[in-house]
């Protein structure tokens, strides 16, 4: 059992993350203090939630490039609602952010489900449309912290058991996803739809509908993260989260979610996101210029996918007589 845990992808990855974490701790003991660990987790919360949503989409052989634009649009929308109607209750605003995010996600999903057009093209298009719509909505203006109500900014910062609500939201998302992806039919369908769409179809799974659900969930989470992002940085503008979709996909890829679909776990995905979070937080502490950050994360992605490609990724395809046959044919 222990051996299997260590040799599993998640095991290797968590050992690397922990080694990195404590390695930095040797240089600077403050880094591994409890409060700093909590703050690293809190920093990574938005990435974790978005990566979980993206994981569903990638599992079904799709990709969602519009998450960051969704974050920007929803963030701007709720910030402006808050600016003009500061007396509105927070629960209403959160509901609004979930609803708008879900709507934007559903647009992607409907195209993929009903028209069967490649998701990369659709989300490439909606990415620029949502980002442009953010500009139209705000006319290029910023919503600054003094224009936001106190509860709007305060909610994600409110601490329960010395962790901010933002972090608890990520914890809740992780638990919910872990349960759904392991024990609910709804969650298992994502694996079957992506692992072998034909088999899924014959066993009664509506693959297109499952893909729609994936985009819906990814969009809903993006909407929530839109509010959280704007509130956390206390500012909303058009370029919020610009290019963040690639970090989200990177978190999934590092965490072992296979881009060809059907393979990936919630735990891996979370560790993948934490990996990026720890690297980002550690660099300034070990005195590496922040300019190195981009190259390092690029290198890590490449190493992770090479490790993925050369190690036992065929375990899930054990049904085949020769587990390598399928991949070899596809690769050639």
């Amino acid at each position, binding site marked *: 059992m222990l051996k299997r845990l260590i040799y599993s992808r998640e095991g290797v990855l968590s050992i690397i993350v922990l080694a990195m974490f404590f390695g930095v701790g040797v240089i600077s003991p403050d880094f591994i203090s409890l409060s700093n660990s909590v703050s690293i987790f809190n920093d990574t919360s938005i990435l974790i939630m978005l990566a979980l949503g993206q994981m569903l989409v990638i599992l079904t052989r799709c990709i969602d490039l519009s998450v960051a634009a969704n974050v920007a649009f929803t963030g701007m929308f709720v910030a402006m609602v808050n600016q003009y109607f500061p007396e509105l209750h927070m629960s209403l605003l959160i509901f609004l952010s979930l609803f708008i995010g879900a709507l934007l996600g559903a647009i992607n999903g409907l195209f993929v489900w009903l028209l069967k057009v490649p998701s990369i093209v659709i989300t490439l298009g909606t990415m*620029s449309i949502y980002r442009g719509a953010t500009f139209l909505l705000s006319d290029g203006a910023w919503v600054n912290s003094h224009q936001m109500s106190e509860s709007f900014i305060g909610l994600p910062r409110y601490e329960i058991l010395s962790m901010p609500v933002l972090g608890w939201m990520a914890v809740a998302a992780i638990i919910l996803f872990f349960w759904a992806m392991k024990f609910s039919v709804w969650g298992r369908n994502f694996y079957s739809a992506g692992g072998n769409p034909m088999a899924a179809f014959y066993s009664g799974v509506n693959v297109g509908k499952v893909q729609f659900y994936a985009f819906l969930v990814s969009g809903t989470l993006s909407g929530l993260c839109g509010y959280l992002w704007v509130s956390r940085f206390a500012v909303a503008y058009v370029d919020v989260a610009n290019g963040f979709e690639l970090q989200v996909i990177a978190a999934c890829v590092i965490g072992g979610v296979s881009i060809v679909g059907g393979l990936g776990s919630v735990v891996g995905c979370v560790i993948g996101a934490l990996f990026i979070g720890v690297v980002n937080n550690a660099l300034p502490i070990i005195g590496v210029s922040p300019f190195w950050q981009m190259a390092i994360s690029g290198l890590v992605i490449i190493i992770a*996918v090479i490790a993925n490609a050369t190690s036992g990724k065929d375990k899930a395809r054990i049904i085949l007589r020769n587990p390598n046959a399928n991949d070899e044919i596809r690769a050639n």
Partner: protein
Amino acid sequence: MDTTIKKSATPDSMFTSKLQGLLRWESFLVLIVFLVCVMNSYLSPYFLDPWNLSDATFNFTEKALIALPMAMLIIAKEIDISVAAIISLSSTLMGLVAQMGAPVYAVALVGILAGAACGLFNGILVTRFKIPSIVVTIGTMSLFRGISYILLGDQVVRDYPDGFEFFGQGYVYWVFSFELVLFAFFALVFYWLLHRTTFGRYTYAIGNNPTASYYSGIKVDKHRLILFTLVGVMSGVASILLTSRLGSTRPSIAMGWELSIITMVVLGGVSILGGSGTIAGVVLAVILMGLVTFGMGLLNIPGIVMTIIVGVMLITVVSLPVLITMYKTSLKRKEAKAL
């Protein structure tokens, strides 16, 4: 030799095949380009000025140069989203070489070599380790631009040798800029390569069925490697033009270009699933996007609003054929029911 396979030559089918030829995606693009021209010249009296039109070409020629090999790569079922990062890295290296006092040709050579090296690196990762190209190039996208940031930080390089500005700002004859002439030249080269050589035929074959191509003796991996390197080289060329036009280098150069380049390719009728598409279509899409952008610029529409229109165009282009087929099949079903 036409690229489409000739159908059996009964008079009736010949007529329909000709009709279908007219209804091709490319003819549709020509029509839209024409409409946009008419609309633009109606909306703004400055549109039809040759110098204005010439200025407008600068906005898209660099991207268009990359769209040509990208079209071939996508036809072969691969994709490269690291192109903008390659521009950044190659521009940075050119800047550093220029600072050391290298002559014009050496600076340009460094740009092209850097691009080729990046493309080759992508190709090796994809072919050697059998990793999907979208993941590889997401990684190298951060890596290449990241290296630029390591090398330059927040600095800007401005000292280029005399004569370097010709690439991006010079005119060859009257209103025809060096960039435009270079694009026309490469459009012909890639037309020849894709539609007139076995290399081009192999590209279609690989895109349609990699396994069958492999078993019929095409060196699939070598072919992919060449295509990735080609994309890298053209990104290097585009980087020379862009650096020379701006007269400066910084790591954030050409941010987000990969998306507009892929949009050009898809708008040109290249299937994102591989196997079909033409250079003529891509060139028309490039002209269309250039004209639309230019026309909206004349009307003082901000750039970010244009991205909405480009996004809508992209989605319409991929959805419309599907909707038409769905409509046709539903009609047929109704007919069958009526019978």
